[in-house]
Every structure is written in C-alpha cells, then in structure tokens.
C-alpha cells in the first residue's frame, strides 16, 4: 500500500486519468473529490462490503425446500405473480427463438 500525506487542496493523480483531491478536513472527517472516467466505479467501501456479504449469505442460506415452504406461507398478490411469470416466460421463449417478444 502506498501511504502519502496530503494537505487540503493537494491532489493525487492515478493512472494519468484519475484525480483525487482533498477538499476539506473537519475534525475526523475528510472531504475528498474524485475525477475519473465514466467507466471507473467508485464505492464507499462499507456499501461494497455490505453487498458482498449479503450475496455470500444468500448463497449459503439457499435451500430449495425452504423456498417452496415460503411460497406456501405467504400472501403474495396473485395478479402480480401472474404478470411477472408471464413476462418472464415470454422473455425466455423469445430468447429461445432468438427474436424480440411482441410489445
């Protein structure tokens, strides 16, 4: 890990096309500005980690038996289910025939 100290207003250039600037420091908080190409994704690390963790939990939790039980338990709005199921089926059928479904 590269460790640097910057003062407010000072910048870092990464890879020639990413610019990081220290905008302001207030107590423990640091305000950072980042200029980067549109295809560079920038996340707060805790959000990224939260989603990653939720993904992993979904995989490790998943048992087919539980899902079927869940379906029997819940008061799912039937019309909504039918709508989405038929949309999904038409999507799948269209993909199989490799053509667009009728709108």
């Amino acid at each position: 890990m590269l460790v640097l100290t910057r003062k407010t207003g000072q910048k870092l250039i990464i890879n020639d096309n990413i610019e990081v600037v220290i905008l302001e420091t207030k107590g423990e908080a640091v305000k950072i500005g980042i200029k980067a190409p549109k295809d560079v994704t920038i996340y707060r690390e805790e959000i990224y980690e939260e989603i990653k963790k939720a993904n992993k939990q979904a995989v490790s939790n998943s048992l087919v038996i539980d899902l079927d039980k869940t379906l029997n338990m819940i008061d799912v709005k039937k019309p909504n289910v039918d709508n989405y199921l038929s949309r999904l089926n038409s999507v799948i059928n269209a993909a199989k025939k490799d053509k667009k479904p009728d709108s």
Partner: protein
Amino acid sequence: MKINTTRFGEIEIDENLIFDFIDPILGYEHLPKFFLVDYSSESPFKWLQAIDDPEIAFPVTFAGYFGLDYQFVIPEEDAKRLELKSAEELLTLNIVSIPPGEPQKATINLLGPLVINIYTKKAMQLVLVNTNYSVKHSLFANNKIATPAIAEKVEQ
C-alpha cells in the same frame, strides 16, 4: 449443454439463456456466467446458477411480486455497457436471502439489483447510490412499499 449443480443435479441448459456479468456479482468476480433456472414454475423465486461452479447459485425474484414500489436509475455509462436501448430490454432481478428453517425472515437485496439485458445477455450487479433501499429488506413484514428513493426511471 449440460452442467452440474449442487441443488438441482445435472441439468440441461439453453445456451441462449446464459447471462454474462460484465461487472461481476460482488464477491464472485471469478464467475461471470450464470444461467436462470426455473426450478418451480409456480414460484416467484428463480435461481441464478453459476455455470462454472456447481455450488454457487443465488435465489432471485422480482421486487414487484411482493408489491414493492421499487425504482432506480441506471447510470448512463452502465446502460451503454449493457447496450440497453429501452426499458423493455431490461430484466431486473434481486437476490433473496432465506435463513435456513425461517422462511418468514426472508430478505431481498434492494441495494444491489441484478440488471440484465435480455437480448445481449449482458448483466451486472448495480450498486445504487443516493437511495434508502436496504440490502436486507424484509419480504414478509407487511411493509409493501420499499422506502422510496429519489425520482427514478430507467434511462431510455
């Protein structure tokens, strides 16, 4: 094409329905290809099965099944990379987490939806910003409306 899966055994899959995650499902960067398995056709829950790892499959569903008012914006650059030209090309799935033995505590990840272009088969897990959506929104706690976010429409 046949693939092996832990949950469903060996299954026959239609190569037309293999989705290619150009940005990965977070934590699964080594698995870009997934197949949508319709294990119980009556059920609102489907599965995204990894092609290259029999053990990895995500239970997924549509937020709309559960009456959730769910909307978000797809950033322009992401829509471009997915080659999305209109809303009808878009399929949004959300990963569901069901604690073993406690299906009433099932939660849905509204913060990281899976967005898929059903024609190009390109997909990504979006990380939504500027929203109050939860990673663990309870599916069965009578809160039908997900906390509303800032005005959203799929970019046309």
